[in-house]
């Protein structure tokens, strides 16, 4: 039961972007960057929802919102430059304008799990769509049980949100473990894959909700490990990626079995995905 915001009146031309100024641009790592957009009117969004971002004359891609849902007058996006559109977005600077459509999709159902222990497991840039949940948890810390965040990345240089990682690490009652796949001797954190670190976190599986965002192979391995630990599959949520052209359920590209990743997701509960994830090339 991922949550969606009450739909405001759908725009007359749902495919037409609103040109929106970039107000801040930060380089996170060699390949990853973050920027803020200042929409004309605040654009309320739920953690886990995404926007379609259009680079003038180049194209449009779906990008999760990585900022705080409490401050919807600023829309933060964290992007890894891998294709022509993301590369074009990576050349932006404050003051430039890009096209914006959104927010779209069903987000993380964090509000529905007050009282639960919460585990967030992120791989690579998958930390970005989960950051709004972290902000939410920090703001509503008393409403939740134990909180644990696992973040896996390729190498220390690839870590994003480094300043905040340090802050979160110092936050009381906030378990954060960062694992890189390889590191030099200066790295004092964990080295290895992210999933085994679950055993290092304290949580009560019977009352735990888990949220996973990362590559599909990581999702599969992590969901199984969580189940083995006793977390119910209906309380494991994952964010999925597929090709998307419209984000409004019309273009057909993002189908995953019966699901449209754009409107049924991107966040789905694992009990709905298990059989689909098991099938190759679905």
């Amino acid at each position: 039961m991922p949550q969606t915001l009450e739909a405001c009146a759908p725009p007359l031309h749902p495919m037409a972007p609103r040109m929106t100024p970039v107000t801040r641009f930060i380089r996170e790592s060699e390949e990853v960057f973050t920027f803020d957009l200042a929409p004309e009117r605040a654009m309320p969004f739920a953690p886990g929802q995404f926007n379609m971002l259009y680079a003038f004359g180049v194209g449009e891609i779906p990008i999760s919102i990585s900022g705080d849902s409490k401050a919807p007058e600023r829309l933060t996006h964290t992007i890894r430059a891998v294709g022509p559109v993301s590369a074009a977005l990576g050349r932006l600077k404050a003051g430039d304008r890009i096209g914006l459509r959104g927010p779209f999709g069903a987000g993380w159902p964090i509000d529905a799990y007050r009282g639960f222990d919460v585990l967030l497991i992120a791989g690579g840039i998958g930390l970005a769509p989960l950051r709004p949940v972290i902000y939410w948890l920090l703001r509503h810390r008393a409403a939740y049980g134990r909180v644990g965040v696992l973040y896996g990345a390729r190498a220390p240089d690839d870590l994003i949100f480094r300043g905040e990682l340090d802050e979160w690490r110092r936050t009381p009652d906030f378990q954060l473990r960062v694992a890189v796949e390889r590191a030099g001797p200066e790295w004092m954190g964990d080295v290895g894959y992210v999933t085994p670190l679950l055993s290092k976190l304290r949580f009560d599986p019977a009352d735990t909700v888990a949220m996973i965002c990362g590559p599909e192979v990581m999702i599969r391995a992590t969901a199984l490990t969580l189940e083995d630990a006793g977390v119910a599959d209906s309380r494991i949520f994952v964010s999925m990626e597929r090709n998307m052209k419209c984000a409004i359920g019309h273009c057909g590209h993002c189908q995953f079995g019966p699901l449209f990743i754009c409107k049924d997701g991107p966040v789905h509960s694992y009990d709905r995905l298990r059989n689909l994830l098991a099938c190759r090339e679905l």
Partner: protein
Amino acid sequence: MKDLADLLRHHPFAEGLDEDTLALVAGCAKNVVLQPGDYLLREGAAADSFYLVRHGAVALETFVPARGPFTFLTVKTGEIVGADWLIPPYRSSFDARAVELTRAIAFDGKCLRGKCEADPRVGYEMMKRFIPPLVKRLQSARMQALGMYDAANA
């Protein structure tokens, strides 16, 4: 050896092990304390020991010329360091270095192999404790080898 059996009893490795076996294998063990930077194992050297980490952290690493040492796994409290003592020619395939003050139980591999040979029941108990973490490490190593974080979504 009573003290060592006690230490061993509190390590997850020994969970469910009966007292006799515990006492038997404790005969091959000693308590060690490692300072940050101390090496537990050296690549290419004889692998005559393995370690149960009681407290601390150990980096498994290999040295890459012109780039320096690369850590590919950190082993922490409750886990095992060293598997090469199990298979001939008992030679360590990586370096293991304490990254913080580490307390561990060190086992004499030759001694334990002898006890396992002598009593296959003990050997089977030991195998049941070694294989799961090794298989899990293999699974994780595969994921790391795939380098899939590069394919992560946003």
